[in-house]
């Protein structure tokens, strides 16, 4: 199994390399002169030149790439033009909030999505199945930022129970912190819940058709044990591979949810920096989110091998 892990890690490197290149090249895509774009329309020629030097744009492409890569290896992602801080610093301040939101949404998604899918599979074609799947389908079809706005309208404007936005740190009290994160978590997690429920259901259905389930039932095992011990464990394997995708969806969703609820997280930082053409932040942020995704997938691959002994490159 150690060999498998090493091979998976090695396989991730080319992907990371290309990811790094793509992150860097986004800036090169900008039509016209990035220095002009960043200095702004009112800048004088001298100010534009200053920005150009500051960004290192006066040097050839490969030199720029090399400088950035070199900085990367030392953990330096450059300086943000607009925030006047190091990119790593800006990201570091905001990452915990996004991770908190992602983790809470993930927990909610798993806590509701998987049981819903299992129940729907066990009660296939009954009204319970139809109901769960309909809700899941609607969840997958609703735009999450619109849902966020609707939740704000209902819980904040109409009922005045929850805040309409803004982040309250944990140090200011558990309940205020929780209330500020409740609606964002719901908005972010609903889509994933629907997706997970659907996939869990179809995977369970596949597994429940298998011969070894019939054997277990014929042996006289109670249904609960059949489901929990045999069916679920085997269904878990494909479900686990979806976790990487769910994480990516959470990161994607965080960009817009954090904007809707005015949470100072990584997603919102990316959105505002993209909007204001703060390219060092964009590059660093892109690289970081993609690297996180590659890392999570690596973990999922290892977990997958752990769960299914057949998958170990023998």
């Amino acid at each position: 199994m150690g060999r498998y892990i090493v091979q998976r890690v090695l396989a991730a490197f080319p992907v990371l390399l290309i990811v790094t290149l793509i992150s860097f090249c986004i800036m090169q895509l900008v039509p016209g002169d990035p220095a002009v774009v960043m200095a702004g329309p009112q800048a004088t020629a001298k100010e534009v030149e200053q920005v150009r030097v500051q960004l290192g744009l006066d040097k050839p492409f490969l030199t720029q790439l090399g400088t950035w890569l070199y900085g990367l290896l030392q953990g330096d992602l450059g300086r943000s033009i607009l925030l006047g801080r190091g990119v790593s610093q800006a990201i570091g301040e905001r990452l915990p909030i996004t991770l908190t939101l992602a983790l809470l949404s993930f927990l909610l998604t798993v806590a509701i999505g998987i049981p819903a899918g299992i129940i729907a599979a066990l009660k296939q074609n009954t009204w319970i199945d139809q109901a769960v799947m309909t809700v899941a389908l609607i969840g997958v079809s609703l735009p999450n930022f619109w849902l966020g706005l609707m939740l704000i309208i209902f819980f904040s404007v109409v009922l005045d129970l929850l805040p309409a936005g803004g982040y309250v740190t944990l140090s200011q009290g558990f309940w205020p912190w929780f209330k500020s994160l409740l609606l964002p978590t719901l908005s972010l997690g609903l889509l994933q819940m629907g997706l997970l429920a659907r996939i869990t259901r179809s995977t369970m259905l596949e597994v429940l058709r298998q011969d070894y389930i019939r054997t277990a039932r014929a042996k006289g095992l109670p249904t609960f044990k059949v489901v929990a011990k045999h069916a679920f464990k085997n269904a878990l394997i494909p479900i686990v591979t979806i976790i990487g995708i769910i994480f990516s969806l959470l990161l994607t969703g965080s960009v817009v949810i954090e904007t809707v609820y005015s949470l100072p997280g990584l997603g919102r930082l990316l959105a505002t920096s993209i909007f204001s053409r703060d390219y060092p932040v964009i590059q660093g942020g892109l690289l970081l989110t993609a690297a996180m995704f590659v890392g999570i997938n690596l973990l999922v691959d290892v977990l997958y091998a752990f769960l299914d002994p057949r998958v170990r490159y023998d």
Partner: protein
Amino acid sequence: MRHRLFVTGLTLLMLMVLMGILADLIATHNPVQVRARFRFRPPSLDNFFGTDNFGRDIYTRVVYGARLSISIGFAVVLLTAIAGTVIGLLSGYIRRLDNFLMRVMDALMAFPTIILALALAAALGPSTINIVVALSTVYTPRVARVVRASVLVVREADYVQAARAVGASNLRIMLEHILPNSMAPLMIQLSFIFAYAVIAEAVLSFLGVGPPPPTPSWGSIIAEGKDYIREAAWITLFPGIAIAMTVLGLNLLGDGLRDVLDPRMNVDSR
């Protein structure tokens, strides 16, 4: 009744498409005309969905918005279908290209979709074409993967071996044998991509890099309405419902296609 999902989805989708096509006929007002006297009117018989901060009729804007939002989705589907099929075919059939192409596809898929689309759209500049290009770039890897998987299977089939034995050129084999037999998973994936594209366009518009004003798209209407949810919640409510119905129809279509074409296939992952 295997076809029930498919038909329901198709009907729903066609309804929304018709709404866009017949916009001139079923709209009640002018979608871009500013009428300051009529600001923030709640839904009524005059204005089915109310008016916005410029006094524009929301119902009309939603109806016209269907055109832009659905066309963008369709354009993305076309572009990803072509690009993804080419890449998938080449990758699955020519082993030497496979490794390299798939690594690039993996790398593109490593970026969360909206973030990559946002970065691309912002880099290229706000215009409808650029959004289509950005979204197509983001979703092509998924199509390429699906096509490649089919190609890998079909490649080993007897009729392909026979064609090769008779001396058919690689191109001919690819176009006449492999491609037609890889269509089913491709169609299913494309209907989901249509759905993702419609939502993604809405998100991009919401975040400010959508099609430029004053042309209404569902996402831009929601974006304009978000500053006024206290006074006029109806601005954000109705375009969202339109999006949800379109996407629901597309999801049902994809599910239905899957049931019709291959009921034993595993549920698609995003």
